[in-house]
């Protein structure tokens, strides 16, 4: 098993719902500590891994943003020991009935549970045979009502709990691969940089609250003021249920995104480099906001030239998101080569093509 696969499995086996990223942050911190000069935590909880460049001071810096938060749920009401829930981030209510979850109770207990669909006779007549609204779903912990009342509070988090699965052909499946798979790609990048020279300083950043407000990327880009920024995130893979123009084959290469959210010069540099390294890549386009940390970084401070590197991910925002390990490794290699190739005067060479 490649080392990066075991790390990825470990970080999708812990929670870290938007606003409560500490459990996953501590695993990432431990992994990054030997790979960088220093790991610090931002005022809002993002991790900043600083890897010092070899250039003369003051050195320019590049920020790579990978969000570590996950979508999930939160307890909204407790009735007879059953938990009503509400969304944190873009939860698809269709995938919830029968899903295994963990309730992160106020008492400190991690309670296993299942999301239950009450029978039609217990629901209003208008509901019943089609997708139920989240307000009708209940989490059952298997505990007696008095135990639940003792341990659980309104506001407690509920995360998906199905275990990661390795599928045939170098694919890993599980919840929260959006965007822990990018954290793994950035980790591959840091590992690659161990025996590469790089002139620029590198900020490896694991951001918080991307799924809800981009809080981490806005604030870290402002605090660190990098000269350029690159976000890493999943895009839509072709597969069952998804075959439109916005979808790309899984395991066949990385995406380099283009559109108003990206700086064309960075895009050209990345794609030319990918060609040179024979890393297969595809062009993804986005007409406005990319829906990733690339947006908040682009508009931070005085504005930052930004790029977006992607890997195709199947079944996004379901508990069985799937990615190709090869694509993760490719993204990491491309980032490392890009960083190692940044010359001291790169910023001065950034041009508009008009």
């Amino acid at each position, binding site marked *: 098993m490649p080392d990066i696969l075991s790390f990825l499995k470990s970080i999708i086996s812990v929670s870290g719902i938007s606003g409560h990223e500490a459990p996953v942050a501590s695993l990432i911190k431990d992994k990054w500590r030997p790979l960088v000069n220093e790991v610090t935590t931002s005022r809002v909880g993002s991790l900043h891994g600083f890897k010092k460049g070899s250039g003369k001071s003051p050195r320019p810096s590049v920020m790579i943003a990978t969000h570590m938060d996950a979508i999930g749920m939160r307890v909204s009401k407790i*009735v007879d020991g059953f938990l009503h829930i509400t969304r944190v981030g873009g939860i698809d209510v269709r995938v919830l009935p029968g899903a295994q979850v963990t309730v992160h109770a106020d008492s400190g207990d991690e309670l296993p549970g299942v999301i239950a669909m009450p*029978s039609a006779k*217990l629901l209003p007549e208008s509901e019943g045979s089609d997708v139920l609204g989240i307000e009708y779903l209940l989490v059952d912990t298997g505990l007696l009502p008095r135990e639940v009342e003792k341990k659980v509070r309104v506001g407690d988090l509920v995360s998906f709990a199905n275990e990661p699965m390795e599928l045939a052909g170098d694919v890993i499946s599980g919840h929260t691969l959006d965007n822990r798979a990018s954290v793994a790609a950035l980790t591959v990048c840091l590992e690659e940089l161990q025996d590469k020279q790089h002139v620029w300083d590198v900020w490896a950043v694991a951001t918080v609250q991307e799924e809800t407000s981009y809080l981490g990327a806005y604030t870290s880009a402002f605090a660190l003021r990098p000269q350029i920024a690159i976000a890493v995130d999943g895009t839509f893979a072709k597969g069952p249920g998804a075959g439109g123009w916005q979808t790309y084959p899984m395991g066949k290469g990385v995406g380099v995104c283009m559109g108003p959210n990206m700086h064309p010069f960075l895009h050209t540099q990345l794609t030319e480099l990918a060609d040179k390294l024979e890393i297969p890549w595809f062009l993804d386009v986005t007409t406005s906001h990319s829906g990733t940390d690339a947006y908040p970084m682009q508009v931070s401070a005085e504005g930052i030239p930004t790029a977006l590197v992607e890997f195709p991910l199947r079944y996004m925002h379901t508990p069985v998101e799937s990615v190709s390990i090869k694509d993760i490794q490719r993204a990491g290699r491309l980032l490392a080569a890009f960083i190692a190739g940044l010359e001291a005067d790169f910023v001065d060479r950034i041009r508009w093509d008009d």
Partner: protein
Amino acid sequence: MPPFGNPQLKLLEKLCNVISISGDEGEVRKIVLEEIKPYADEVRVDALGNVLATRQGRTRNGAKRTRVMLDAHMDEVGLMIVADEGEGIYRFETVGGIDVRHLIGKPIYIWKTRTPGVIGGKPIHLMDAGERKHKVPVDGLRIDLGPAGKAKVGDCAGFATKFRRVGPSIMSKSIDDRIGVATVIDLLKHAPSNVDICAAFTVQEEIGLRGAQVAAQYFNPDMAIAIDATPAHDLPVHDGGENMTYNTKLGLGPAIYIADGSTLHDPRLFRFLQETAEADGIPYQLRQPGGGGTDSGAIQSALAGIPTVSVSVPHRYTHSPVSISRVDDWKNTLALLHAALKRIKPALIAGR
């Protein structure tokens, strides 16, 4: 009652953690055969795949013994691969009654080859508001085994849910009806001498009680008890009103049947079970009469008719990836049935 504890729960865990879809019950059959061989006088696997075991009692002076058929079904609902679309993507159909809303976003196993897979769904980002509100029918879903994944048309798949114990409860994909299988194994192991036991571990209950029919025809017993898991719809009503349609409730003990969708249970037998529970102080509940059914439907009408009753362990979220039962309900089900077997005399079903 023989001691109840870890050995029974360990066996239940083992039974629950294999996948055994109707028509493909080999994995459970293997475990059952291993468990019962030392305790049965005769064991056979019949033409459909039922495991049929007998254990003779012993009575003085050749006094008549009642032949009691104990029935539990080995199969569970699941999926069957019906077409290969290439690159590890497969179409499937459901086997038995599965609500399609439980399928999307779930990990599964093709059990024979222990091949893991997932049932994915279109990303929420690519759907319009209308699409988000509608369930995806089975023909819109696929099993994804990964690009190098291989399965054969006809292979069966089931939910990849592991058995677990949580506080007073157990959680598993297949409490229905491994809890019945584990119960009949326990009853056979500790059978009293006043009865002859005909233990039927049946196939294909979920698709029409097929195994039970031929098992009853083979045994021709004096009476039968079908042991199953029955739904507990004991959840709050959306508007806070009283739940009038709970079927059964967790924690109130074994559910004794009076009538369901396919059987009017034998009054001599359901009264006998209630009297036994009351005499021994064993908690029990009466399943709300209504639809649904168990193997009793096929057994009662077999041959010239067989006096039949059902007893079930209540469980929530039937035929879904995770069902929940209370350990105490199972313990009390075992207590009731052990006690009942000891009390059975030929007079119980003589005349009506």
